[in-house]
């Protein structure tokens, strides 16, 4: 069972409350595909991913970014039970999507970078960063859990 301090809960829900899934989702996914180009292997059907500009303008990337980012909402609302909340999602990524789970941490890092850019030093303090990264760690662990 993950133990969250009140400060951590507050930091996570506080950040999440100010994040627009429609804005940050596409940014984070595009960044993943540009900074870690091997991740493009999972998106062969998305059309033109041939350059950073193409990726950032690709409507399928944007749409999927919203889906992925939106998935975090259930984790934020179920901080004390992320593992169970994501059990089906983990199975999906393993058995149907066949995503190498090492990629989850790459996306988590891209999300963190996007959050840092949005919130700046006064809101994204070291303590807030700690809570946010702990949250993403828990999400990643839950997504890895059903792999066999």
């Amino acid at each position, binding site marked *: 069972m993950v133990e969250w301090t009140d400060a951590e809960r507050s930091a996570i829900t506080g950040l999440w409350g100010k994040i627009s899934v429609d804005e940050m989702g596409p940014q984070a996914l*595009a*960044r993943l595909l*540009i*900074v870690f180009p091997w991740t493009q292997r999972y998106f062969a059907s998305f059309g033109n991913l041939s350059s*950073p500009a193409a*990726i*950032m303008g690709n409507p399928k990337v944007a749409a999927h970014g919203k889906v992925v980012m939106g998935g975090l909402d259930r984790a934020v609302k179920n901080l004390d039970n992320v593992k169970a909340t994501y059990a089906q999602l983990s199975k999906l990524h393993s058995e149907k999507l066949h995503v190498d789970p090492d990629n989850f941490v790459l996306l988590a*890092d891209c999300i*963190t*970078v*996007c959050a*840092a*850019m*949005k*919130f*700046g*030093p006064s809101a*994204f*303090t*070291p*303590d807030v*960063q*700690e809570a946010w*990264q702990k949250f993403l760690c828990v999400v990643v662990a839950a997504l890895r859990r059903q792999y066999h």
Partner: protein
Amino acid sequence: MSLTAKDKATGKAFFNKVSPMAEQIGEEVLSRTLTVYPQTKTYFSHWKDLTAGSAQVRKHGLTVLQGVLRAVELIDNLKEGLLNLSELHAFILRVDPANFKIISHNILVVLAMLFPDDFTPEVHVAVDKFLSQVNLVLSEKYR
């Protein structure tokens, strides 16, 4: 994943732009390293004050950042240029190289945070590649 000419040009241009804020960047990087990854505090047990923003953290953050800026200048020959730094880390500091990744991550986060308009995905990938090369060279002399 070696640096292309474009990576080097992008990296150099970006670091030239941000270097005037080296002190603030360094302080944020080290503060976050110590706060978000508390195991890194084990390397500073001889310091009086490890809290984010303390005088020792500010001073050492700048030292680390200046090392990175020096590496940017030596970007065309990192292996030879950083030889002394590699020996320092290998034989004297003996920092576990896993920590280089931690510092690199926080450098990326802080650069993104302080320069949101400039830290485009293209700059992000160039800087990430550059820092990976620096880490590799710093580990060179370990064994």
